[in-house]
């Protein structure tokens, strides 16, 4: 099975590099990136992706708005979404759950933490599909 294509969205160049390199270190080489929600929308529409890893706080369009757009837009509506953010309050997590992110990581994360969350999402998605 081909490696899934990840779209990493974060306005911080440092964070994008960290997430992308961590994904590569755990075996996911097929990665594209975007600097904010609008950029991500354009990337999805032009080249697609299988898995979205997005920050919350971003200019133009934030991660929450991006998630709402993805969930309302075919063929991306069922796409796995992992939110990676500094926002670690209970209300934030609940708000993210309402827009149906598949999982949630509070920065700073560990490589193992990122891998575990992706594995969980992949497993849950496979279970649903089968």
């Amino acid at each position, binding site marked *: 099975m081909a490696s899934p294509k990840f779209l990493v969205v974060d306005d911080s160049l*440092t964070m994008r*590099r960290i997430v992308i*390199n961590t994904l590569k270190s755990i075996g996911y080489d097929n990665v594209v990136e975007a600097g904010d929600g609008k950029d991500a929308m354009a990337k999805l529409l032009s080249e697609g992706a299988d898995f979205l890893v997005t920050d919350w706080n971003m200019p133009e369009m934030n991660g929450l708005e991006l998630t709402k757009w993805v969930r309302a837009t075919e063929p991306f509506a069922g796409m796995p979404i992992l939110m990676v953010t*500094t926002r670690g309050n*209970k209300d934030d997590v609940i708000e993210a759950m309402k827009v149906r992110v598949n999982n949630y990581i*509070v920065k*700073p*994360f560990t490589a193992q933490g990122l891998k575990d969350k992706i594995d969980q999402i992949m497993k849950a998605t496979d279970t649903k599909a089968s």
Partner: protein
Amino acid sequence: MRKEELEEIVKRADQVAQALGGQPETREFVSHVLGFVKHILPMVGELQASIALTSEKLPTASRQLDKVTEANFLASTEILDTVDRILNQVVGLQQWVDAQLGDANVPRLDALVRKITGGQTDAGTVAELEEAWRAFLGGRATPGSVEEQSARCQQIQSDCTNIMIALQVQDITAQQIAGVNKLMQSVDDGLHDLLHQIHGDERDGRNNEYSHHHLDIVHDATAEYTGGAERQEMADRLMRGDTETSGS
């Protein structure tokens, strides 16, 4: 109340005191009021000067914070570049080490043995088998040492990943500094309002004094770089639907 207005009160109180010259109680009261106003008059001046000075320093501090964030960003970028280069080198080294373990020669040996057992026993094939066998033995000659190098490569890769992960501090502190910059701007706004009240100056817009490339970011005021996992554990409990124990 402006300084000029206080000075006017002092002047008027003096006139009232002179006009009420013959009534001791009233004269004493006016004298107290006069003393109080005279006492706070220089304080108002000092307060005004202090506010003005503080308000001048705040934009300078904001520019310094921008430089701190920029320096952090540049240093992080350089570290990430270096880590990338190390990782690329280690991946190459790991491949070489793996080849030294001899495993790379196994498929070749297998193919040659199949040829010979299939009847292809010419001198070239036999010589090739001998060469492949020696290469295999060479790789296995010091297995402990080669395996050790392989483990070292993996450790370096793991360390590089940990360095990258630690660089999240750049993003998190950038958000914290942007939050502090906003606070400083709001303090400066308050001080300017005070100056306006005291001095009567028209309030000047100073937003651009706090608008810097590295500080004008969408930030999270609650961002923090902690080693603890409490916030992640709370998020995990909520995501699992375990709302009873998720806390606040």
